[in-house]
């Protein structure tokens, strides 16, 4: 396996540093500049950058092409892949395609339902689910085999991640669900945005009690609020999102012009508190259409400079 395919994110985590990742949503057009600009803003402040795969089912430039743009500018990408739009042939083929560009990380997801996007009349595929996608990449990487059993020449070499939402229902199976993802072969987890820290800590305690934190690197997901309106929207409209009343109140009690700053404050305070939670190995900062703020958050949270790994 060529060295270039080795994941920096994996090495940072395995050396015991707190990792920092962020994400870029590709544009709704073919101009790559949008993604390059976003990456340029954050590249020195994060270890890897996720590229979303038609998030919320809205058609965009494909994740793989955007990952290649990042890779070419020296930024380490995390290829997000959803099972909504591809059957097992396309999935394996795309994994090989990504591996041919030595894209070193992959995040396996089922994807938002198409009814939320710009093609609500489309079919969804869901030939396999996100856990089975993890199994698929691991089989291709570790056994060097396709799902059909044939051998792969130059198997893909990817660090394999998945998402976890500690706040969705039913809560009692959220730890078992993580255990299942770990059993499927997940090596790192990026969580849903955390606003309810008490609940997150309760979940993490369950994770540690089962020793899962020793088997998988958990990156805590954070998203700064730009405004009180955004906080209210996330609380009311985004399924599986847990925004406590006091957080919404803190945003609403802040004068409008100071709200963005307060949003960043909350985010930085959250990271500070999460740093001391056992099993948290890093942070996934999702500054939605606000990538310019990532450097400030990383710096203020004491996560800068990023470790140098050869």
């Amino acid at each position: 396996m060529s060295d270039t395919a080795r994941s920096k994110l994996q090495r940072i985590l395995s050396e015991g540093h707190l990792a920092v990742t962020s994400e870029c949503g590709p544009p709704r057009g073919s101009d790559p500049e949008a993604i390059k600009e976003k990456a340029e803003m954050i590249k020195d402040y994060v270890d890897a950058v996720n590229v979303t795969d038609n998030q919320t089912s809205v058609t965009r430039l494909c994740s793989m092409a955007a990952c290649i743009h990042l890779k070419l500018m020296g930024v380490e990408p995390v290829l997000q892949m959803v099972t909504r739009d591809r059957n097992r042939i396309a999935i394996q083929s795309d994994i090989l395609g990504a591996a041919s560009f030595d894209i070193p990380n992959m995040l396996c997801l089922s994807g938002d339902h198409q009814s939320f996007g710009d093609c609500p009349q489309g079919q969804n595929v869901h030939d396999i689910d996100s856990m089975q996608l993890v199994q698929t990449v691991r089989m291709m990487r570790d056994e060097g085999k396709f799902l059909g059993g044939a051998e792969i020449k130059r198997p893909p070499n990817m660090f394999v991640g998945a998402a976890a939402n500690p706040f969705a229902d039913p809560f009692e199976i959220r730890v078992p669900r993580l255990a299942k993802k770990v059993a499927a072969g997940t090596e790192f987890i990026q969580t849903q945005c955390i606003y309810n820290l008490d609940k997150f800590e309760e979940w993490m305690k369950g994770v540690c009690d089962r020793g899962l934190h020793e088997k998988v690197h958990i990156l805590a997901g954070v998203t700064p609020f730009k405004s009180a309106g955004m906080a209210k929207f996330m609380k009311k409209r985004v399924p599986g999102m847990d925004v406590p009343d006091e957080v919404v109140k803190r945003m609403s009690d802040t004068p409008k012009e100071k709200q963005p700053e307060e949003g960043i404050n909350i985010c930085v305070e959250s990271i500070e508190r999460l740093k001391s939670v056992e099993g948290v190995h890093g942070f996934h900062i999702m500054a939605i259409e606000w990538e310019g703020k990532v450097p400030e958050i990383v710096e203020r949270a004491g996560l800068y400079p990023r470790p140098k790994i050869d």
Partner: protein
Amino acid sequence: MIIAEKKPIEEIIGYVDDCGKLLILGCNECVTVCEAGGKKEVGILASALRMYFLNQGREVKIDEITLERQCDHEYLEEIRDVADQYDAIVSLACGVGVQFVAEKYHSQRVYPGVNTCFLGATEERGRWSERCQACGTCILAYTGGICPIARCAKRLLNGPCGGSSNGKCEVNPELDCAWQLIIDRLKALGRLEDYEKLLEIKDWSTDRAGGPRKVVREDLQI
């Protein structure tokens, strides 16, 4: 059973507007139970069409027959002697019945009078919901008797996804999250640990993916 919904009368008129003699053919099975294509619905459609044509100043002869089933040779034979007297047959059976009529009466125009929706059950009168997608390899033994293929919007085999909220699906707040139902049921059975078994990648070749399916029972054939 198979759940179907009546097609709008305008659509049916569009198919048969040029006809002078019509047969409305009902089915006594599933479509009768879901009140889309039984004897009663045949009467309603026939009456409505007669009035439509009369209102256009045309007298179209419309006959009504409801068979025991339209998916069996022996019952479809009952219209053998009359089938060719009509300019067209509107079948109110499910898609299976419509096709069987078309196969059997090869040179006869046959139109569907219902939209065939899914395999489901009656929750209460006027309310039916899906339960099965006939994937051909039943997994209900592993999922507490609740099918995630038919009832999860993403047919996740190892769900629930992150959009499960208060027992409901993110796609539609009126829809139960199939995985919440599965977890509740496993808990009631005292078998919550079953959830942690990873369900394998599914063989969809017994589903639609494998092409049109057939069940052959040689032990039954003579």
